[in-house]
């Protein structure tokens, strides 16, 4: 039997990020959130402490850590705020990782140093309006014209795509057809390329201090050398990174769930009603006990998925389970925490109000809860006769 004690360096990282979140994020994030403003200063500080380089080797400017180190950082950030956590998650998993994994030496050299240091952000454009989790339905096209690609189409809900420090968006586009099936490739579009338009920010229910936009491409021309990875393999490449993205979102969800417990334990020791601190009433104690139990189980689920991933064992099912149980734990905890805070829980100035608004997307992004259940069922050998 093994246990889940963290290695010394992972534990030290967790503590450092916790301290950072508490001292640098917590005091100021509420204002950014209220104004729906991207927190450039916080992101720059995250870059300086190496968070954007966590899973990359030192040879490309990274910190020489692993994907689990990134997960721990995401959990500790999300314990205080999810907007900065998702900015980090997308910057690493969607911005830098595909270029690290599938890029040519030239592409790596051109883009990775600034992405890995956090001075620049990259985004990944997969989802389209009406596309969602059915990524095979991609309608954006890239036509080869001599030494160039000509890209046309629209991408929706793209994180980190329109900040002042965004340098590129990697988009998936149809580049041809083989045996009646669409060939999808990934193409790097540098920010500012003519024909590439970034809409204004969406007005979102949560994650309000993160940058999410719709992108459109109208005869947008980039050099042929901007193809990322193999032609026609763009979707397959992306799929191979989805499972680890789920573990990361699971870690982020556990952070939010834990943040709800932290806030409630503190609040119920202060708030009195009917002559007692509300934390002395069993109705409240049981709610918080359930919140803690959900958080603990969800954390073990993502630790297990991450451990398998690092050991290079199959972890698709475990990643889906972790994403499913932790996003639901986050949503449940946010709802209960808001209930415990009563009227104050409905006020944006209290963290639990933010947690409530930030939790719902966790059951949607990186594969909905329904998609996770589908993956688990399929992995158990349950098939659908019409497929």
């Amino acid at each position, binding site marked *: 039997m093994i246990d889940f004690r963290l290695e010394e360096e992972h534990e030290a990282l967790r503590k450092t990020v916790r301290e950072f979140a508490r001292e640098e994020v917590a005091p100021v994030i509420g204002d950014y959130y209220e104004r729906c403003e991207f927190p450039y200063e916080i992101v720059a500080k995250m870059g*300086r402490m190496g968070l954007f*380089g966590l899973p990359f080797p030192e040879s490309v400017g990274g910190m020489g*850590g692993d994907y689990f180190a990134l997960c721990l950082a995401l959990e500790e950030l999300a314990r205080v705020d999810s907007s900065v956590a998702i900015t980090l998650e997308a910057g690493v998993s969607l911005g830098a990782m595909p270029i690290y994994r599938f890029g040519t030496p030239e592409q790596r050299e051109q883009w990775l140093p600034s992405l890995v240091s956090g001075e620049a952000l990259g985004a990944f454009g997969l989802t389209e309006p009406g596309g969602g989790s059915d990524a095979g339905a991609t309608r954006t096209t890239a036509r080869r014209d001599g030494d160039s690609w000509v890209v046309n189409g629209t991408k929706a809900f793209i994180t980190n795509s329109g900040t002042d420090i965004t340098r590129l968006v990697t988009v998936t586009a149809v580049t041809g057809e083989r045996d009646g099936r669409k060939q999808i490739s990934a193409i790097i579009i540098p920010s500012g390329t003519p024909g590439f338009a970034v809409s204004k920010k969406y007005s979102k229910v949560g994650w309000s201090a993160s940058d999410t936009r719709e992108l459109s491409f109208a005869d947008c021309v980039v050099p042929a050398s901007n193809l990322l990875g193999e032609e026609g393999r763009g979707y397959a490449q992306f799929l191979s990174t989805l499972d680890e993205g789920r573990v990361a979102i699971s870690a982020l969800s556990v952070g939010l769930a834990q943040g709800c417990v932290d806030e409630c334990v503190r609040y119920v020791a202060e708030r009195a009603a009917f002559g007692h601190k509300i934390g002395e009433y069993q109705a409240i104690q049981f709610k918080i006990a359930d919140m803690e139990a959900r958080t603990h189980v969800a954390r073990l689920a993502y630790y297990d998925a991450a451990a398998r991933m690092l050991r290079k064992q199959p972890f698709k099912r475990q990643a889906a389970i972790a994403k499913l149980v932790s996003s639901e734990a986050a949503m449940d905890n946010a709802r209960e925490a808001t209930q415990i805070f009563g009227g104050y829980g409905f006020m944006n100035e209290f963290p639990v109000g933010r947690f409530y608004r930030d939790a719902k997307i966790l059951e949607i992004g990186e594969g909905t809860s329904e998609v996770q259940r589908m993956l688990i069922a399929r992995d158990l050998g349950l098939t659908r006769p019409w497929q």
Partner: protein
Amino acid sequence: MPNIVVLVKQVPDTYSERKLASADHTLDRASADAVLDEINERAVEEALQIKEAQGGEVTVLTVGPERATDAIRKALSMGADKAVHVSDESLHGADIIQTAKVLAKAIGTVEGYDLIIAGNESTDGVGGAIPAMLAELLGLPQLTHARKVEIDGTSVKVERETDAGRTFLEAALPAVISVGEKINDPRYPSFKGIMAAKKKPVTTLTIADLGIDASEVGLANAASQVLESAPKPPRAAGQQITDEGDGGSKIAEYLVSQKLI
């Protein structure tokens, strides 16, 4: 290429509840998370900035129980090169004078130091006397409460800030300086720094290694004794003044009664 020694101390986290042990009124170390004191992070940061600009080596020095290795590790993760840890059970309850003597002896084990940097006072004991005592014991100039430090090969210039105002000091190296809150913003260790810290040398010394006898140190030999201690009383409810047309003068009366105006 200055050779710098930074004094660091592990203290209870100011975010957690801090208590004294009921038996001997010393710090109850088990009751709170232990962290590297914030002011020491600034001292380490200052040393690292000097090193990054001019080269040299940064050694951190602490006197504390075994678990103080965590504080040392943090300083090494930030980028210090090596550490000296004086750890000895007989130091339990040591007072400031004893601690300064131990530090002075331990600094003697660091070859060819040019500068000693300390925080101006710890967040737990809040003594604020160590830098001055240490300078006396070592026969070195002391430049305390620095908000700005500049060094060249042979001298150090310090902008000193206290409640009384600012003074501009200069002294020949080697010297002892202490830094205040405004000196810099300390960096957070990176994962690379955390990994590197595991391989950095830490020398652990007992007081016997420093030629100090157990009868000179510890609670029983402290210059003063704590006879009694009590936690801070909880904050009393405030006094409410209802404005019935005379609210202003009632507030003024209250402030006068408290000798505030």
